[in-house]
């Protein structure tokens, strides 16, 4: 059955967005990512204009992350305090990133910087997570986990002011830490035009040292607020949100997020990390192919970035 999308001005078989929603929602519930880095290109592939694809995806992520946050909150896996600090940083970083894009666009280098940032960030994050989780999985098999020696980095982090305890995550950090790193992810996310979940998750795991299951719930919580803001701005200033497409997507993604959250509880932290790392790496390889292989059509719709 086909549905007509009033803002995208195109018609789509409803099984496509529902199926895509289900698959990406599943990843969302499992890993705490919004999945924009997967969903937006897939929607474009199915004929949705790129600007509408990105804006509508943020609308459906609101639903998927609400569903996911709710599922994780029920089992006590959302650190609201940490999420709030990350949000403050992310919001400030986002504002800064949007200004940066304006400057880049004025110099005419925007596309190059965006694509390169995307590929590098995906590549670095994917590779690091993959190697790290692989080695920690091997370690666990062969030896008992030894208490890690405190590194210089950890000592430096502890010397920062405004130290506070995050009960849910069981960690103590300076309040500045999540704000600064949240800001950093906010800048990158604004440059790349994505929610930044796949960057926020490694920041929480490796820098903030939060347990993986709390990371997923907390990441979803802050993605929810980011996407509410983005959806509103896209609808208000660019008129690019397609309500019907969003509804079709969220029919799948809200259910997918619940299933993901259930599955996630059955998997170990390392297993979750390595699967996410593999997905990120596959997307990186796909992007590298896109950048190097001759495209079949050399023109595309203007607008967005």
């Amino acid at each position: 059955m086909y549905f007509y999308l009033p803002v995208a001005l195109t018609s789509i078989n409803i099984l496509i967005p529902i199926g895509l929603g289900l698959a990406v929602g599943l990843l969302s519930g499992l890993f705490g990512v919004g999945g924009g880095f997967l969903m937006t290109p897939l929607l474009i592939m199915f004929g949705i204009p790129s600007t509408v694809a990105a804006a509508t995806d943020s609308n459906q992520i609101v639903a998927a992350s609400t569903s996911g946050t709710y599922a994780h909150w029920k089992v006590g896996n959302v650190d609201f305090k940490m999420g709030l600090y990350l949000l403050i940083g992310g919001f400030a970083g986002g504002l800064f990133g949007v200004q940066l894009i304006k400057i880049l666009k004025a110099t005419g280098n925007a596309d190059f910087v965006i694509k390169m940032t995307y590929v590098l960030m995906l590549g670095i994050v994917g590779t690091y997570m993959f190697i790290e989780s692989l080695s920690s999985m091997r370690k666990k098999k062969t030896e008992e986990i030894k208490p890690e020696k405190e590194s210089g980095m950890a000592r430096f982090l502890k010397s920062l002011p405004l130290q506070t305890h995050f009960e849910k995550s069981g960690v103590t950090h300076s309040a500045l830490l999540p704000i600064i790193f949240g800001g950093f992810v906010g800048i990158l996310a604004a440059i790349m035009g994505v929610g930044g979940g796949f960057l926020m998750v490694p920041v929480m795991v490796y820098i903030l040292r939060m347990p993986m299951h709390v990371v997923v719930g907390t990441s979803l919580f802050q993605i929810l607020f980011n996407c509410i803001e983005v959806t509103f701005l896209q609808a208000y200033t660019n008129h690019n949100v397609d309500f019907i497409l969003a509804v079709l997507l969220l029919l799948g993604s809200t259910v997918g997020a619940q299933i993901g959250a259930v599955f996630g509880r059955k998997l170990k932290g390392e297993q979750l990390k390595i699967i996410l790392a593999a997905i990120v790496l596959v997307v990186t390889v796909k992007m590298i192919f896109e950048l190097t292989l001759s495209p079949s059509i050399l023109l595309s719709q203007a607008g967005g970035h």
Partner: protein
Amino acid sequence: MKKVRSQKSEVRSFKNIFLTAFIIFLGMIMTGTKASAELTIKANHDDIKIDFFYNGSTVSVAGDADSGTDLIIKIASPEGHEILKQKGKVAGLLWMNTGTLNFEHTPNLYSIYSTKKIEDILSAEEADKYVIGYPALSRQMEIAPVSTEDERSKWFNEFVKYKESSNLYTTSSGKILTTAKDGKQAYYILTAWPYQAPPGDYLVTVYAVKDKKVIEKAESKVMVEQVGAVKMLAGMAKNNGALYGGISIMAALAAGFGVGMIFRKGGGAH
């Protein structure tokens, strides 16, 4: 005297009419049935309504034409302009958007159907005059910024490729069915109307062609409009972004919570 003159003039004018009619009759016998205003056109589905379940439509174009003429049917939207991103190689290796191109005098939808290949039945001058076929469209289109003719033709070809990929541009020959009917020919073609064609008015023109020239044309219209909820949503997205955004967010939040609740009830065992 006056009466006589008027009688004489009446006789003369009667003679003239008779003569003219005779000449026309002769002419018709000599050139077949080449008479003007013989060409008719009717688009059967001329008011396409876009509702929720719209997935494109079909439009049939039919009419009568003089036998011995070839036919060309053009379906096009009014000319406009389009700005598109162009991809190019950066540093000799990476494909990226390198700028934008401005295409002027371009119809958004452009379909040409003909009984035979355009170049075999129509001269280039006539094709240009009526903008029939891609070469003619290329000559009337302005593309900027391009520096050489080669570059221009490369980007025109890319433009056509881009449009054909969304079914908005098409040309084909030999698909118009013609049947002899009372010394004339009846023509008929069923065309697929792409869902990608946005709401608007589209002009359907049939050209009767003989000796590489257009000898007659007839026009009809296809109107495409959004109706009902589709129209309401599209209008709200455009004119009341804040409300539309608010509703979209509320709906997403409600759906997220709703599904969460259902799963809690249904999946309490987890």
